[in-house]
């Protein structure tokens, strides 16, 4: 007997789409339009632009931390389908995002989530031993740095604001944006 787990993800996703269509909840056209629209604009460059702007504009920094949705809107990223909460790293604090129950993730600002974010290992170990998990990503934090883990269990989606690297004072907005990685915005890298 062939179980669901033996089938490629695309086949399983298609089965789910067919059930939605059969139930009258969505049409093929609506699903295509939604996915096309999402992937045309969803990219970690969006989150990177927000971080770079916050590094150079104190009022934007304040807005980003107090009202992430408004901050996303100010850079033209439109109406988010979730509440965006941005948590800022500091010299003595490092934040990291996980969703232990499934794989909640701010897709429109980070692009499709990486496979490891959805893995059982990342989801179960990050809340339990984040320092070791981060070390496996190559991020070895001093013991003096407090780690704060955010488990996305609600309508809120989290984004990490990395600390601006030293020696970047002369860089342009585009050059700063290029420094910020998707992993930095999840918290599995420093920037």
């Amino acid at each position: 007997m062939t179980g669901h787990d033996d089938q490629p993800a695309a086949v399983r996703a298609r089965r789910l789409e067919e059930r939605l269509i059969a139930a009258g909840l969505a049409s093929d056209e609506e699903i295509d339009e939604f996915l096309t629209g999402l992937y045309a604009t969803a990219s970690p460059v969006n989150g990177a632009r927000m971080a770079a702007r916050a590094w150079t504009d104190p009022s934007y920094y304040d807005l980003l931390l107090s009202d992430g949705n408004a901050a996303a809107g100010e850079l033209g990223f439109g109406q988010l389908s979730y509440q965006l909460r941005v948590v800022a790293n500091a010299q003595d604090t490092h934040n990291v995002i996980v969703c232990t129950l499934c794989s909640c993730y701010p897709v429109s600002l980070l692009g499709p989530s990486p496979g490891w974010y959805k893995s059982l290992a990342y989801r179960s170990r990050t809340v339990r031993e984040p320092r070791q998990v981060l070390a496996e990503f190559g991020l070895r934090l001093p013991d003096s740095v407090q780690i704060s883990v955010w488990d996305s269990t609600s309508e809120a989606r989290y984004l990490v604001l990395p600390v601006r690297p030293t020696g970047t004072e002369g860089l342009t907005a585009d050059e700063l944006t290029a420094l910020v990685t998707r992993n930095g915005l999840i918290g599995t890298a420093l920037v």
Partner: protein
Amino acid sequence: MSLDAGARVRVRTGDPDHHTRVPRYVRGHTGEILAALGRWTVPDDNARGLEQPRVETCYAVRFSAADLWGSGDHTVTVDLWESYFDRA
């Protein structure tokens, strides 16, 4: 119920036979309210298709690793609807 930051809450220990958004690892543990996030439909009621699902305030609640796991110096913050916990 309206809780200020710093209030202590204890997560209920029940194990419902329907969908819920309470991770098992915080059940029975005491945490501290960080912030109220918003008022949203309780996922348990939504998943069961209840005609009048509860709409409740959802809070970011912070737990210490030492309390959750018996070791570790980090914190874990989980978003919890108010019917998921009681005042500690």
